[in-house]
């Protein structure tokens, strides 16, 4: 059997390939990362909304990060309905108490978790929202009850700056 000895040429070959691969990867990453949200998009990360005009049983839709946010001032009936649901009946179990810290106010992204359409208000089998695209039904807490959507509508980070103003983001 012929003994294989590492020669100068083998070393050069391996070293060149290794440096070349690392170099290529280092150049490829900026090319990929440039497509991620840029600084100006990230800068628009929060928005303040005046909700003083909103009466119970109505919804305000505002744009946040290019997506609609539903701000619903719920009636007592809606709150009771949302809080009486058993966890085992839910596709994505979440307590209404966790979704709406202040029971009167429900704040969530108005984006269907199936494929991103905007659900319609006061529609569907559960008196909440209904997505016209592929037929997902949400309840008065924005939780998915029927249809292809896998999750409840997302509750973003928000806080009451004062009694009349909500800061989203």
């Amino acid at each position: 059997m012929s003994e294989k000895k590492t020669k100068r040429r083998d070393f050069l070959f391996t070293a060149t390939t290794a440096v070349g691969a690392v170099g290529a990867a280092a150049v490829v990453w900026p090319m990929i990362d440039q497509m991620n949200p840029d600084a100006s998009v990230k800068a628009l990360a929060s928005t303040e909304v005046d909700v003083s005009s909103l009466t119970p049983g109505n919804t305000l839709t505002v744009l946040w990060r290019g997506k609609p946010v539903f701000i619903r001032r719920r009636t007592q009936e809606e709150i009771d309905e949302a809080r009486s649901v058993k966890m085992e009946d839910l596709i994505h179990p979440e307590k209404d108490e966790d979704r709406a810290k202040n029971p009167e106010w429900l704040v969530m992204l108005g984006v269907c978790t199936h494929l991103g359409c905007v659900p319609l208000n006061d529609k569907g089998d559960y008196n909440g929202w209904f997505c016209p695209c592929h037929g997902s039904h949400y309840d008065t807490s924005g939780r998915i009850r029927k249809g292809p959507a896998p999750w409840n509508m997302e509750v973003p980070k928000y806080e009451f700056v004062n009694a009349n103003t909500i800061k989203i983001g």
Partner: protein
Amino acid sequence: MSDHDYKPKSKVGQWFNDRLPLLTLANHLTDYPTPKNLNYWWTFGGILTFCLITQIVTGLTLAMHYIAHADMAFESVEHIMRDVNYGWLIRYIHANGASMFFLAVYIHIFRSLFYGSYKSPREIIWILGIIIYLLMMAAAFMGYVLPWGQMSFWGATVITNLFSAIPLVGEGIVTWLWGGYSVDNPTLTRFFTLHYLIPFLILGLVVLHIWALHVPGNNNPVGIDIKKPSKDTVPFHPYIVIKDGFALLMFMIVFAFFVFYAPNILGHADNYIEANPMVTPAHIVPEWYLLPFYAILRSVPDKLLGVVAMLSAILILAVLPWLDTSKIRSAVFRPLYKQFYWILVADVLILGYVGAMPAEGLYLLIARVATAYYFLHFLVILPVLGFKEKTLPVPLSITEPVLGGSPNLATARNKESKIE
């Protein structure tokens, strides 16, 4: 083949050809031996080349006037329609050209399915074709986003959201595709860039597709291997050039009908409303050529599995040469396959129809049955059929059935004996 012996007649030609053998290539293309029994279903390769060139030329001219910006795109398209000289014509050719392109490619694909053109030794031609088809869908989808109407915006939202079905990294991929937290200006500008790039990628793949075709040569309606050149072949020029040219003119009549008499019939009225991220149109429907796959997506009640089913429906075609176990190429000699072929055609048309309808009740049921059958055809029927089917005797040459008066040898022999 006489390719390598080719010598240009003129001295200048010889001088040039010794340095860059372009004239040898031209000679190969004109003399290229073609089966003499090719029917009109074989003219769609030429028609598709025409479609690609048309899309590139009209696309380049539209890009001179279009503005890829979320605030201006919609208006710039209206500007093209109303102010730019012949802008309406160029845009209508481009928009309907996409539909004509898909019409031609579907005929081309189903031609291959009927005559077994995807089988050995033509697998690479077939796979290159499937890649071209995938790129066509990507280009068409991104092109549809550019006018920034309601269907553009929500179509882009729904299709990009398909990637969110991928576990763990899905949401990150969608944000990366969008360049933000929703479909917006960064999405539009990158879609424009890619929409501009893809046709040239397709052009490169078309060259490979034709190159790969010229190695074994064309399949033919009888589906047998033929000697080239022989009395079974005719030179590409002038025989096929004229035939392709005639078919192309017929095709252009259909094309012109849509452009001049029904330019918006294949589109959606909602796309003449500017994109609005706050309101989703009541009924989101993709363009007609994507409807069968859309129906498959919606027929599966699970988000991830729906996306997997839709992608599989396309990718399954790439492995078709290995799923079809029959040694006989042409359906002419496969009595059972011929019937299953037409059932598949009907199945795809039904999927297209229910894809345009709301996904509920009877439509949903039909979509589910049709989806199941689609996969059944490729995964069960085709592999089994290759072993079970009793095929008809195949002629030894093209000339034989032509002289006998029928492509089916048995019938031809029958006829001959009756004459005697």
